[in-house]
């Protein structure tokens, strides 16, 4: 069957199970958009900026565990994707980014809207392609999706010259991928697993640190089995939130710079760390040289390059988290660590990291907690970056996988709105709350138009403190309150929402919070609430930059300790 390159691309996307793409057309990709009406099963969502498209694709990918797809034209369209591709790369999100390129004869001539996007994205993609003939298209798409979703997932970019879309070729979709340089290890080495089991069986103060790898591998059940069988407390990284139910008695919440004090203290006291699908990021470990100083470390990860990268590991196991845990769980002997668990309970009592202080002020922690109360925890939360992100991580209790979507590695402000949009497209039946800061929200505010056009019932909570809050917090704590370039005026967000055709409410008083959230939930479509919160609220606990993980700043106010 002879098809043109654009048709081959569409056929191939359908073969890969693609249902939705987020993108913006432009000169180089018109031939692709031109054939889209022939493929009604490929839904295209027009965003208002390519950054919106790429973050939406990541939100979609993370809510569903499927490959997210975004499309942009050559030149500026492609460069606008860069931030979102980097975010997907650092957080191991499966993504395929399709970019147009100038026609083959113009490549290298600095043609209009020509940019070397495969060169630019080299360090932020798992792999990328420049398709030089329509006949290569199907094979490239097959490989790209395979690479994006297997092993340690990540973004793959496919750059397609304009004339390749038009060129005709025989369409035959390859049923096999043969990449001799890419064969991820799935099964862990049995001897290593045995060694790990022995360490676990002998440990007195074992501790599991669960990361995003558990979610990617859909291994939450195996993780729970391990924790319960050997009675091992579980803490998660920021991106591992949801991999283990936070309501579970063995859950200690999140570790790291803004982690729970008791979780960080546990890391310091443990004699064995079982790190599962996490990469010892500096925000998680704090000062790496004193991280888990008294512990042996077992590290399970599908990416061999993560082993020993930041922290010295005693027993490395390279493999898929689920596959490894399945075998490991068989070798674990049931055990109780009564002393250890009760020690942790004591710390949890003495250092209640997420107790909301009693005040009549409208504070952000209360807003997040009320979203939890009103939704009964049954929602997907998509956060921005900064203070709003930390409060959203701390004060909402996550009990299901993939209900917490946040860009942890790159930390791009402006992630929240488009990613929430993508999550809602992925899971139309779920309640999706976008928890934004007033700074980040203004970076991708234009996607309100997409939300309205596509009738996506995203609920938006702006934690509006009129500051670039996290930077302000650092200025307060480490730069003697010199608030340089952090005070921020914003528009009237409710009016902005209204202008985009989206309903909204402003909340200035604590007593209005719950009813506003209820109104948003009852409203059929998208809804925006502008929570005008205390401007100088800080995120606690906090491990100051450069300090060891147990050197924790807790909320200094006296009222913080409410029993």
């Amino acid at each position, binding site marked *: 069957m002879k098809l043109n390159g654009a048709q081959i691309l569409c056929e191939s996307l359908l073969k890969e199970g693609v249902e939705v793409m987020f993108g913006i057309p432009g000169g180089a990709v018109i031939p692709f958009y031109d054939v889209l009406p022939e493929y009604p099963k490929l839904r295209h969502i027009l965003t208002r900026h390519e950054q919106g498209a790429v973050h939406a694709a990541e939100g979609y990918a993370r809510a569903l565990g499927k490959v997210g797809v975004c499309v942009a034209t050559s030149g500026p369209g492609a460069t606008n994707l860069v931030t979102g591709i980097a975010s997907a790369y650092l957080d191991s999100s499966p993504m395929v980014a399709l970019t147009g390129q100038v026609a083959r004869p113009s490549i290298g001539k600095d043609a209009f809207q020509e940019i070397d996007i495969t060169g630019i994205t*080299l*360090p932020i993609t798992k792999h990328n392609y420049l398709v030089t003939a329509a006949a290569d298209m199907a094979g490239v798409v097959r490989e790209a999706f395979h690479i994006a979703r297997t092993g340690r997932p990540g973004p793959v970019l496919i750059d397609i010259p304009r004339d390749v879309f038009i060129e005709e070729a025989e369409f035959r979709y390859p049923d096999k991928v043969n990449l001799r*340089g890419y064969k991820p290890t799935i099964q862990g080495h049995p001897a290593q697993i045995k060694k790990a089991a022995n360490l676990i069986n002998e440990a007195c103060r074992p501790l599991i640190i669960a990361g995003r790898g558990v979610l990617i591998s859909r291994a939450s059940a195996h993780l729970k089995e391990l924790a319960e069988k050997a009675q091992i407390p579980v803490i998660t990284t920021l991106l591992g939130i949801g991999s283990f139910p936070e309501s579970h008695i063995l859950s200690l919440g999140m570790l790291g710079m803004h982690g729970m004090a008791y979780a960080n203290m546990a890391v310091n006291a443990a004699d064995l760390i079982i790190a599962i699908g996490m990469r010892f990021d500096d925000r998680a470990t704090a000062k790496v040289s004193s991280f888990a100083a008294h512990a042996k470390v077992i590290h399970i990860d599908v990416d061999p390059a993560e082993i020993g990268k930041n922290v010295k590991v005693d027993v490395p196991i390279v493999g898929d988290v689920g596959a490894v845990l399945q075998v490991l769980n068989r070798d674990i002997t049931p055990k109780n660590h009564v002393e250890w668990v009760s020690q942790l309970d004591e710390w949890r009592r003495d250092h209640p990291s997420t107790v909301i202080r009693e005040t009549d002020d409208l504070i952000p922690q209360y807003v997040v907690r009320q979203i939890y109360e009103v939704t009964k925890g049954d929602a997907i939360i998509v956060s921005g970056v900064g203070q709003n992100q930390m409060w959203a991580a701390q004060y909402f209790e996550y009990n299901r996988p993939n209900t917490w979507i946040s860009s942890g590695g790159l930390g791009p402000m402006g992630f929240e709105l488009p990613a929430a949009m993508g999550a809602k497209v992925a899971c139309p039946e779920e309640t999706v709350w976008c928890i934004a800061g007033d700074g980040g929200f203004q970076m991708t505010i234009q996607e309100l138009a997409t939300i309205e056009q596509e009738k996506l019932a995203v609920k938006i909570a702006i934690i509006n403190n009129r500051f670039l809050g996290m930077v302000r917090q650092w200025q307060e704590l480490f730069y003697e309150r010199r608030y340089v370039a952090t005070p921020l005026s914003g528009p009237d967000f409710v009016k902005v929402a209204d202008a985009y055709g989206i309903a909204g409410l402003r909340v200035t008083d604590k007593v209005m919070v719950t009813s506003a959230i209820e109104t948003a939930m009852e409203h059929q479509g998208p809804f925006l609430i502008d929570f005008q919160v205390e401007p100088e609220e800080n995120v606690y606990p906090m491990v100051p930059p450069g300090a060891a993980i147990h050197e924790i700043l807790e909320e200094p106010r006296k009222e913080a300790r409410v029993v």
Partner: protein
Amino acid sequence: MAKHSLIALVEDRPGVLNRVASLFRRRGFNIESIAVGHSETPGLSRMTIVVDGTATSVEQVRKQLDKLIDVVKVTDITEDGLVARELALFKVKSTSATRSEILQIVDIFRANIVDVASDSMMVEVTGDEDKVDSLFRLLKGFGIREVARTGRIAMARGAGGPIVVEEKPKRARPKRVKGAEEISNL
């Protein structure tokens, strides 16, 4: 810190050298030399990359290299006992007075004269870096106009190859032949 020889078998495709070189830059390594050519397998190129670094940091960069889709296999053969060679061309100033002395030195090093002009000679030498360096030092006195060096290519000694393209249950380690001296040091 020590010099490490990494051997990478890579897909023979456009952009691969860029991917490899960019990775070293990103991880903060200075490539001392890199030599690329065809390997014994069609479609695969062989790179010999020499970098300075601690064993752990080189191991980290090796693993990062291995993650590149176009890189089929990377091995650090530094510890394995290897034969390393490079080729160099020197253009040396010469006069009728110095010509015979230069020829003598070249002869001792089993190097060759590959071009002669009225006031210069081109010397071709093959060997490990030490040998190339010593010849360079000796010829320097006569005045060197131009130097071109290929950088190191290397291969592990013994029967086993360090590089296994097809997946096998166990990685074949090169066997070190005991007592095998580097007989062609000069």
